[in-house]
């Protein structure tokens, strides 16, 4: 089936909502959170109306139904990213929790002097948990630097990943620059040095076809809400043999096999890492999101967004007195920019008055802002429902910003 963005837009009720006194919503903030199709909203509604009960707890019919949906969601996500099995798919609260889980449970395998390697373009979620681990364990963090066009510097990659490296944690797609990193190559280099490779897939899994086994990473973290699913659910993919060795992160109900007064035995994968009543309706929503994306096809989605990103790149780089950050090639639909003489907040506020939703600020990448030499940027990010009209509206909106500040 051919990709038809008009048809897709009809699936997203919020896009019909008039914004700022009757203006068309131009939603260019999908990198922050994606809008939800009626299929996802309906699945969550349906879960509460017809299937709500606690999972893995009871033998009554509703619990069976809820459990089946919850487990099916794991299987669907496993299929979506080509994990080896659903045992390799752990549901968390979000990508941030997935990364925190790692920063805590990989600790027993680290000794003083072991190094952690990150890049200068990491989101705070893939930086702060490792900083805290570094403080607790005395494991220094080394940063891979960027080239002048905001890609990872290959020389720096080779120099920074050494025999001392134990963990390499890297964003697949930068949430600020849109850079697509060659994580397959980085995973290979990490493994040659006997280090684990952690990939932050929050900005890639919703937009590109992902094959976790082909990427070769040991762990892949992502969020439901950025892939057109609900907030409150995230995923950690991990290789089974590593997950089996790792200790649990959170403790309580659901993650145990048996408990006596002295101690407990842990449940099997993935439940060992899912303590407490999990996000159940959210899992139903995530299942619907994955089904929705698979129905359209990640290949077709990736192609649509790539074409749109080229159009956006061409349009935005033709604007005078606008600085665009990020690479010219190997980039996803994320565009950080600044309008000369105008603060990013003012850019965002004026665009908002036109019905255009962009983000203004540091995008949870404050250290990266110091590399760019700016306090913040405005950021427009694309999604499955974005159109060339959205980008034209953005360009016109930037014109208005320049007129106001003229």
């Amino acid at each position, binding site marked *: 089936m051919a990709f038809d963005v008009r048809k897709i837009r009809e699936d997203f009720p919020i896009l019909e909502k008039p914004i*700022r006194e009757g203006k068309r919503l131009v939603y260019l903030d999908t990198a922050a959170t994606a809008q939800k199709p009626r299929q996802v909203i309906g699945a969550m509604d349906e879960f509460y109306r017809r299937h709500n009960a606690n999972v893995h707890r009871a033998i009554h019919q509703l619990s069976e139904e809820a459990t089946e949906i919850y487990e099916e969601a794991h299987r669907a996500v496993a299929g979506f990213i080509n994990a080896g099995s659903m045992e390799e798919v752990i549901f968390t609260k979000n990508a941030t929790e997935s990364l925190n889980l790692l920063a805590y449970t990989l600790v027993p395998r680290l000794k003083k002097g072991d190094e952690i390697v990150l890049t200068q373009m990491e989101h705070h979620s893939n930086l702060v948990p490792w900083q805290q681990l570094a403080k607790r364990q005395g494991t220094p963090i080394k940063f891979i630097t960027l080239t002048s066009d905001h890609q990872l510097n290959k020389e720096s990659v080779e120099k920074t990943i050494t025999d001392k490296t134990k963990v390499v944690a890297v964003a697949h797609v930068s949430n600020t620059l849109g850079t697509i990193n060659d994580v397959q190559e980085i995973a290979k280099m990490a493994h040659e040095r006997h280090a684990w490779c952690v990939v932050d897939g929050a900005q890639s899994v919703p937009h590109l076809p992902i094959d976790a086994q082909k990427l070769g990473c040991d762990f892949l973290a992502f969020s439901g809400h950025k892939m057109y699913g609900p907030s409150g659910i995230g995923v950690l993919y991990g290789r089974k043999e590593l997950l089996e060795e790792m200790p649990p992160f959170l403790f309580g109900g659901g993650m145990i096999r048996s408990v006596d007064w002295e101690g407990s035995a842990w449940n099997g994968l993935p439940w060992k890492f899912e303590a407490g009543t999990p996000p159940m309706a959210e899992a139903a929503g995530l299942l619907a999101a994955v089904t929705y994306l698979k129905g359209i096809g990640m290949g077709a989605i990736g192609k649509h967004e790539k074409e749109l990103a080229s159009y956006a790149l061409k349009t935005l780089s033709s604007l005078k007195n606008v600085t665009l950050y990020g690479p010219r090639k190997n980039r996803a639909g994320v565009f950080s920019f600044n309008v000369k*003489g*105008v*603060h*990013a*907040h*003012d850019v965002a*506020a*004026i665009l908002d*008055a036109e019905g255009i939703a962009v983000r*203004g*600020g*540091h995008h949870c990448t*404050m250290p990266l*802002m110091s590399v760019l030499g700016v*306090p*913040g940027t405005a950021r427009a990010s694309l999604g499955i429902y974005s159109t060339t009209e959205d980008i034209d509206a953005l360009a016109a909106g930037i014109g*208005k910003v320049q007129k*106001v*500040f003229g």
Partner: protein
Amino acid sequence: MDPVEQMYHENILDHYKHPHNFGKMDNASVHHHEYNPLCGDQIEMFIRVEDGRIADVRFAGKGCAISQASASMLTDAAKGKALAEAEQLTKDSILEMLGITLTPIRLKCALLSLDTLKNSIHIYRVYVAKQGDATSDHAHTGERNG
């Protein structure tokens, strides 16, 4: 009126592009730095106190038009005031100077300079004035997150 033109009216843009009292001061009695982690805006304020009055005040920093214009207007208003008088300035005084209404998020931009001024005066009272050294260049820099 167009809501954008209402917010970014000529007076605000004029203060943004040509801020009054902008720059650092060598002989400040107190200087203090505030930061809005939400947007990265920062304001550093320098105050010279003489006889319990704000003899001079300057500010430096980066920020959006609303935060910079409010700092420019606020420093104009604070200059010459007794400390106790300057402490009476409120959110409403800032909004009156700006002549606009603001959403809660943008209000934080507008109030960053007021927070900086008030905290500067507080620091002056607690750390500087108590040492009986009110007109020296004994400056104190404080930083507060959030």
